Each structure stands twice: as structure tokens, then as C-alpha cells.
């Protein structure tokens, strides 16, 4: 799983029917210290994350294990809103 920050939203009218009603967000991966990293990813939101919030994103077929994503064409899902990251 990666740490990422919500940087935008995606609106799509025509889409797979199994994706209807799901919120799509644009994520920017961040380091544990909070610095932006390269690239971006579009993810399905399962927790109600908001703009600029730091979240936990799961990718690959494990994303379909998230509640609300069973049997949907999803490869990245937001599964948590990060409160804190502690580096030991």
C-alpha cells in the first residue's frame, strides 16, 4: 500500500455500470515525511476522503477486496485516511 495525497477529482459520465456511484479521485504519491513523489494515480474512494487529505491506497487485484469494490473493475482503491505516520 502507498501513502498518497488527494489532489483532484475525476468525473466520468460514461463508464462501466459497476463503477456507477463510486467517487474517483486523483492521488499523488507522497513519502512518509509528506513530500510529493513522481506520478499520479486515479483511485476509487471507499472511505469518503477529501481534497488534500493524506490517504492509504491499495493497488492491484487486492483493491477489489475492499468493501464496496467486490467484483468491480478497480485496480486502485483508497482504504484509509491517514491520521499520523510515525518514523522509528
Amino acid at each position: 500500500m502507498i501513502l498518497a495525497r488527494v489532489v483532484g477529482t475525476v468525473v466520468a459520465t460514461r463508464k462501466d455500470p459497476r463503477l456507477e456511484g463510486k467517487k474517483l479521485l486523483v492521488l499523488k504519491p507522497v513519502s512518509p515525511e509528506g513530500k510529493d513523489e513522481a506520478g499520479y494515480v486515479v483511485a476509487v474512494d471507499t472511505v469518503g476522503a477529501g481534497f488534500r487529505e493524506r490517504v492509504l491506497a491499495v493497488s492491484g487485484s487486492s483493491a477489489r477486496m475492499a468493501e464496496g469494490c467486490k467484483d468491480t473493475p478497480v485496480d486502485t482503491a483508497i482504504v484509509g485516511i491517514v491520521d499520523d505516520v510515525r518514523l522509528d
Partner: protein
Amino acid sequence: MQLGRVVGCVWATVKNPSLEGYRLLLVQPLASDLRDTGKRLVCTDWTGAGAGEMVYWVRGREASIAFLPGQPPSDATIVGIVDSVHRAAAKTSKPARQPAERH
């Protein structure tokens, strides 16, 4: 599976219900010579590993299989704590075996 070192932990109060109750640890992947390599990532923890411990972790769909019959939405899971690693010395440019001297 790959080797890694636990370097921190992640708190998330709001999370997908299927992820409730799982520990989330920050892992630094290690190369075969046990040096840090690649980006740190968040893993669910099956073992109860602690800070600074060397572990091995599995990625992909198999990461959630470690918790069967539960199947959390996880793509990386710590599945073992490493006691020790033995590996052959790194190859050098010198030939491994010197030709025998003739008398």
C-alpha cells in the same frame, strides 16, 4: 517475497471496514546485500513485528491471503520475522578459483 526493515507505523482511524483491526507498518525494502533499496511502503502485519526488525513481506494478491479466512484489502503483508540471513559473497571481477601452480 522480499526482505525489508520496519521503519515506522501508520495510524488511520477512518478506514475501509474490511481493514479494521489490522496493524499497518512502514517497511523499507532491502536489497540482497541488506542495504536499503526502493521506496518505503505500508504493509499490513501478520507477525507482530516491531520497530527496526528485519522481516520478509509478500506483495500482490497473496498479501491478503496471509490473513485467511479474513481477506483485508492489502497488497503488501509482513509474513515473517527474519532471524538471520546467509548468502554467498558477492562476485568480484577476480576469478573464483585460481589456477593451480605447476612445479
